[in-house]
């Protein structure tokens, strides 16, 4: 277990400006009060902790090890040759985990804390299904039931993930579903509603409120989720043999990006290294909150059940066009990431699905790994940036997942 971090890193206490607190809207019940009823208690503590380093429970670390942490950090020599200008590229391969993505890093502790609270089941939302799959695995290992609301466009196009979630014992509903009032309302308004992460969150919370022994666990955006992911960056710092000039990750809500970059950014903010390192967050043009969003208080879910948080947002009722990179189809970015973007510490870029998948194909052919469509956005940015950088420059990016469960995306690319 010695190579797996012992703590998660909380960037809030190192930020150049304070994170604005969550806020209740002026109508209806207190959403902040509602958190008590829906979320595992330890997660709420972590959301408001003043500690810079939060200890990882031994039970969670043990599962991290069983599942394959630390994940490999590899040099992308094939991609480097393809770029051909002497820029070095490293990637952290989170796709090596059983779920095929970084999501297990937070699914394990969240399910563990729900179990410690006596929950019999956890409910959550999922876009592409990477989060839902991770929760299904964590729930199976820890011994409680998982209920997953999956955005309908993905539910229909990513049948394998649905099947594997069920293989692990999870119950999976397409969202909008007929199980909750938010789903029913959405179907009534638009029978062909493709679903959105925001809506799926509202459904999962509503489901939790309908029964006993249920807890809601979120896949991104909230600060404790980002904190759990910092095992990625802490490992990367100890694995990478040279200081990166650029660190890149894709952004849905911000958790894989934060997981890789925050330990680097924190050190930079504290003046403890990485002074010259740049950080680039890459999003989908289907949900361009980082490049086009407003920095304001908004709900993280479309139903407005959670407290408002200040973030870069396209509006909680934004329904992104269906996209293969379903994990990036989210209207907002985590508050800490939004603040870092506002402060100019993190740069941003948006790509279309086609631009990203083109890079995904290049990566597959040069490195032998089919990247997740989400991660392909980061790869596209790596290629574009590398071309502008001098020989010997070093880039690190997060290969947040593999794409072996995303055949629908690659079918389109390879269509004659």
């Amino acid at each position: 277990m010695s190579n797996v971090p012992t703590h998660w890193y909380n960037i809030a206490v190192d930020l150049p400006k304070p994170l604005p607190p969550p806020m209740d809207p002026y109508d209806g019940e207190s959403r902040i009060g509602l958190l008590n009823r829906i979320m595992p208690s330890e997660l709420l503590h972590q959301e408001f902790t003043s500690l810079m380093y939060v200890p990882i429970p031994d039970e969670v670390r043990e599962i991290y090890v069983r599942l394959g942490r630390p994940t490999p950090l590899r040099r992308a020599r094939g991609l480097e040759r393809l770029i051909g200008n002497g820029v070095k590229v490293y990637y952290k391969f989170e796709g090596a985990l059983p779920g095929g993505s970084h999501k297990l890093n937070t699914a394990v502790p969240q399910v563990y804390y729900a179990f410690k609270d006596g929950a019999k089941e956890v409910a959550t939302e999922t876009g592409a299904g990477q989060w839902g799959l991770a929760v299904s695995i964590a729930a199976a290992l820890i011994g409680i039931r998982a209920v997953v609301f999956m955005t309908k466009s993905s539910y229909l196009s990513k049948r394998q993930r649905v099947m594997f979630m069920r293989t692990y014992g999870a119950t999976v509903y397409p969202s909008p579903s007929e199980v909750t009032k938010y789903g029913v309302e959405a179907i009534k308004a638009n029978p062909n509603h493709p679903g959105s992460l925001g809506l799926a969150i509202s459904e999962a919370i509503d489901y939790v409120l309908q029964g006993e022994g249920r807890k809601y666990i979120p896949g991104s955006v909230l600060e404790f989720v980002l904190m759990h992911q910092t095992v990625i960056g802490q490992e990367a710092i100890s694995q990478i043999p040279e200081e990166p000039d650029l660190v890149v990750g894709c952004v849905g809500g911000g958790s894989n990006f934060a997981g890789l970059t925050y330990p680097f950014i924190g050190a930079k903010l504290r003046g403890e290294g990485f002074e010259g390192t740049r950080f680039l967050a890459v999003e989908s043009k289907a949900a361009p909150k980082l490049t086009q969003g407003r920095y304001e208080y908004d709900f993280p879910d479309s139903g407005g059940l959670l407290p408002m948080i200040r973030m870069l947002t396209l509006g909680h009722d934004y329904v992104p066009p269906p996209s293969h990179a379903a994990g990036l189809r989210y209207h907002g970015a985590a508050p800490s990431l939004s603040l870092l973007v506002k402060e100019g510490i993190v740069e941003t870029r948006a790509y279309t699905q086609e631009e990203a998948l083109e890079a995904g194909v290049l990566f597959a052919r040069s490195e032998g790994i089919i990247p997740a469509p989400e991660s392909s956005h980061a790869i596209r940015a790596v290629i574009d940036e590398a071309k502008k950088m001098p020989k010997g420059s070093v880039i690190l990016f997060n290969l947040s997942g593999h794409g072996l469960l995303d055949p629908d995306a690659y079918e389109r690319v390879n269509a004659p």
Partner: protein
Amino acid sequence: MGISRPALGLYLTATYPSTRRFLEVLDKVRDAEVDFLEVGIPTRNPKYDGPVIRMAHRGAELMGLDAVKAVDDYSKYSRVPVLMGYVSDYLNSLNDVAKVAKDVGAATVLFPDLIFDYPELIGKYVEVMRSNGLALSFFISSKTPYRLIRSLSELKPLFIYLGLYAATGIKLPIYIEQNVATIRGIVGDSFLVVGFAINSPDMVRSLIKAGADGVVVGSAFIQRISDLNDALSFLKWLRGGLHE
């Protein structure tokens, strides 16, 4: 002017539920000897407050500084009176707030939204408070960056107020003692006030033990305000937690 350690403070929204009742409460509070008194400037947008204090803002008879001016001199009622308002209401009139604070005998004006929503105004706030002969005070959350807390402490404020929860009056399962102990280690000698959802002497005791210098009660007192005797015995009961 300093606040005695350990201290119990009371928060009231000016002119809630009516000017007459507010004055009656203040009269009684004088005898209850709270160590400091926070007087909320009623606003239509109390964004970081919970349901009870939001209700008190909406239910105040007067709004804004007019409500505060219902009393000539708050130092008659408490050793250390403090005004508390949202800086978003006074972006272009900070000096007016400071003048009123000075006129009514307040020691400082605390703006809970200053460092979160208007960090660029911190310098101006310091200048305006000082030029009016007022002390400084700052509101922070458990997640406020350490460096900012240190720099606020270096300004020698009358106190730094740590909000224990996400909003006033709403308890969450947060290790508040751990947060207080961490922040205590960062604020150095600054007077550390903690508040939000304070409702028992045990809670007061454990927060003081964790490193707080003062504890403020607001929502739980305001909820009892219709029965003043009940409210005052509650305050006395809480005070029991200040000492071992």
